[in-house]
């Protein structure tokens, strides 16, 4: 068969045939690669997005099996999360997400389709997303206030009323959070500063009368802050009481009756009543929550905003450090260094640096930046706070610096390539105009090679943003109490620990107590990380293309 083909080609040159085969092979390789990438992205995108789509809830009846997790219950409502047909006896097995973890203690349960007596989709079922224990699924009965029952679930305005109460509680929740983190936080900080001031005064061997006065003043101020603290704390407590003053009374499909404070409800919907637009609205709300809110319940619920923010700030910060550093190094190597043994050694070192495993950089960052540089900084500037470290512990600064170190070879190599690509004629004409070497580099060579520098930055970003291993040694945490950038002086808190999407994925998938329930979040977070890297890259590519157009060489 091949021989026939050969014959047909005999008239033409042998090279043509070989070339054809090579083309086939390379295109095969390309399509295989593309196929794998598309499949991977497809799986992630499908799973990541379907998390947010509200699915219908079924109610199933079955013969109670006292040995199972559900005990003697014979009815349960839940969302079908998988339907598998086992091969030998072709029994269909359903996995049902039943929620109500406060009552059942489990998230999922399995049924053989054949053992189910009855499967329905009751319209009255309500899905509640709560601040604790995840979702609840049940039939609403009524809402009660401090003085008794307010509205029954049969009332036509019930959903509306519940919605407005939830909204009210959410607003109050925001106020409470502001009170507790901002205002009370500020008081804590002021008290800490007073303590440090006092410590500094007391460490002096002799106290002047002025110092003694100052100490007294500190005591006064402390008392003032403490009374302020009590007032604010009381107000917060009052608000908290209001959060639980109204309760939603609901009944599970299996019969349990529960009172849930409205303040614990995030969102609710009737999964079997709403149509497509209702579903889309819930979907949209879920995505908004995922992107913009903080995680709850050991990160398995809520959003990932701090992790997005941490990743973003860290990556940007890394770029800000690595770009000038790499560009300067490349300029030296390319423009000033005389070609010799030393330069060649440096080049070899740079190329090999790119192959060092990232965890090694993590260890180096920990030893050098955190313990040595950070420890020294602490002793010099923050000695009063010791033994609590300020910079002597992992933080976003050290993580960015270490990643910058890790990615600097990429920037150097790309920049050098771009610098050598600038035509010698341009340099000569600049020098002939009376420009010095540095002026030539700064005004002509660098702008002309900016697209190449950006390419290096893009590559560095792509490598740095997805890196997790070194970060685990350098200040990434499961839950960070505050963001590395906020409206409190000095705005950019480089010593803070931070959350990171890559670590978040690892943490959810492998460290969480109920990793099966966390799986959807793993997909969603992975999707988000990929999207974030793509967006950062696209932004850089757009800038690069604009620059290219600007500095495009004329076609001659």
């Amino acid at each position, binding site marked *: 068969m091949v021989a026939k083909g050969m014959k047909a080609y005999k008239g033409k040159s042998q090279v043509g045939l070989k070339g054809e085969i090579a083309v086939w092979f390379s295109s095969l390789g390309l399509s295989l690669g593309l196929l794998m990438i598309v499949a991977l992205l497809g799986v992630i995108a499908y799973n990541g997005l379907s998390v947010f789509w509200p699915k219908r809830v079924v109610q199933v009846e079955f013969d109670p099996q006292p040995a199972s997790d559900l005990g003697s219950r014979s009815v349960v409502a839940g969302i079908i999360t998988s339907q598998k047909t086992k091969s030998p006896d072709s029994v269909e097995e359903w996995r049902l997400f039943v929620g109500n973890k406060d009552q059942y203690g489990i998230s999922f349960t399995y049924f053989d389709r054949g053992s189910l007596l009855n499967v329905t989709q009751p319209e009255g079922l309500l899905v509640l997303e709560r601040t604790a224990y995840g979702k609840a699924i049940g039939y609403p009965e009524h809402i009660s206030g401090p003085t008794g029952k307010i509205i029954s679930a049969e009332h036509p305005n019930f959903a509306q009323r519940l919605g407005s109460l939830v909204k009210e509680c959410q607003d109050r929740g925001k106020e409470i959070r502001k009170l507790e983190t901002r205002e009370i936080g500020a008081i804590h900080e002021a008290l800490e500063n007073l303590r440090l001031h006092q410590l500094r005064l007391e460490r002096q061997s002799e106290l002047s009368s002025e110092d003694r006065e100052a100490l007294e003043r500190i005591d006064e101020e402390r008392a003032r802050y403490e009374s302020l603290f009590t007032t604010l704390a009381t107000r917060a407590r009052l608000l908290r009481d209001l959060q639980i003053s109204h309760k939603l009374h609901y009944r599970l499909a299996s019969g349990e009756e529960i009172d849930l404070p409205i303040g614990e409800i995030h969102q609710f919907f009737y999964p079997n009543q709403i149509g497509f637009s209702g579903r889309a609205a819930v979907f949209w709300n879920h995505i908004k929550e995922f992107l913009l809110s903080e995680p709850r319940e050991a990160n398995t619920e809520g959003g990932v905003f701090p992790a997005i923010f941490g990743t973003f700030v860290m990556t940007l910060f890394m770029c800000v450090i690595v770009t000038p550093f790499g560009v300067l190094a490349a300029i030296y190597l390319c423009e000033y260094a*005389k070609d010799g043994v030393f330069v060649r050694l440096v080049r070899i070192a740079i190329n090999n640096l790119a192959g060092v495993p990232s965890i090694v950089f993590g260890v180096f960052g920990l030893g050098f930046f955190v313990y040595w540089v950070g420890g020294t900084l602490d002793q010099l500037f923050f000695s009063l706070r010791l033994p609590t470290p300020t910079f002597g512990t992992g933080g976003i600064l050290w993580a960015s610096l270490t990643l910058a170190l890790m990615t600097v070879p990429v920037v150097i190599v790309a920049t050098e390539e771009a610098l050598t690509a600038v*035509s010698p*004629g*341009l*340099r*000569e*004409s*600049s*020098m*002939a*105009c*009376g*420009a*010095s070497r540095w*002026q030539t580099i700064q*005004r*002509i060579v660098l*702008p*002309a090679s900016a697209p190449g520098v950006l390419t290096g930055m893009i590559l560095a970003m792509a490598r740095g943003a997805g890196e997790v291993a070194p970060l685990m040694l350098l200040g990434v945490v499961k839950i960070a109490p505050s963001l590395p950038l906020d409206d409190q002086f000095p705005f950019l808190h480089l010593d803070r620990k931070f959350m990171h999407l890559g670590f978040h994925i690892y943490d959810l998938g492998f460290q969480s107590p109920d990793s099966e329930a966390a799986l959807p979040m793993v997909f969603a977070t992975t999707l988000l990380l990929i999207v974030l890297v793509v967006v950062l890259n696209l932004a850089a590519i757009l800038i690069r293309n604009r620059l290219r157009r*600007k*500095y*495009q*060489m*004329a076609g*001659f």
Partner: protein
Amino acid sequence: MEKAVNMDPEWENRAASRRQDPPGRSYISVKDYSFWFGHTQVLQDLNLDMQKGSVTAFIGPSGCGKSTLLRSFNRLNELDPQARHRGDITIEDLSIYDPAVEVISLRKRVGMVFQKSNPFPKSIYENVVYSLRVAGKNNKSILDEVAENSLRSAALWDEVKDRLGESAYSLSVGQMQRLCIARAIANEPEVILMDEPCSALDPIATAKIEELIHDLKIKYTIIIVTHNMQQAARVSDSTAFFYTGNLIEYNKTQEIFLNPQNDKTEAYVSGRSG
């Protein structure tokens, strides 16, 4: 070793009388100048003088060292770390290698136009005023004036006056070359070096540049390297013929073309060699 022989005596006298002109009249002289790239000698014991306000053409076969000598006048060869020289070049009796003279100030006095026009990746305006910018002059009104005057001198003003902010790469190749000339004269140099400025241009653009050289020689001393004999004959006052790093003949252009003294010169200008 042949030197600048076969000089017309009268011309010599005129040159000598010009040398005695009052100070301020700049002229260039090359004295026993040799040049090496590494171990290869490129120029051998050259001697020649050029008058102020004249156009001198360098001709000779490819690789004979014309560009190297031209680039010696603004010390551009020194960008190559292998470059070495012996002998001296003076402009207005001041050695260009004088330790008191900075290379940068020398390059401000000696502008250059290259064979391949290479505008900077900047706007037309910024290209013209580049030499002022690097000299630290940023006064807008001065820059505007210089830009207009230089572009007018380079006969480009009318074509670009409405698009000064556009990228220089939007110009045609001929316009780009005139832009490079405008760039070279923006800083008011005394000497302009041109290395085959028309080799990439069509006849009309070439004619424009030649006309320009005619106008510019009132103010500037021009040295031009060219492979085009007609061009050398049209634009230059005197012509130097080089052969393998030696100056074979240097005389008034008319003499070189009509009455060459050396066989090699005759062969070259009549198109029988090179």
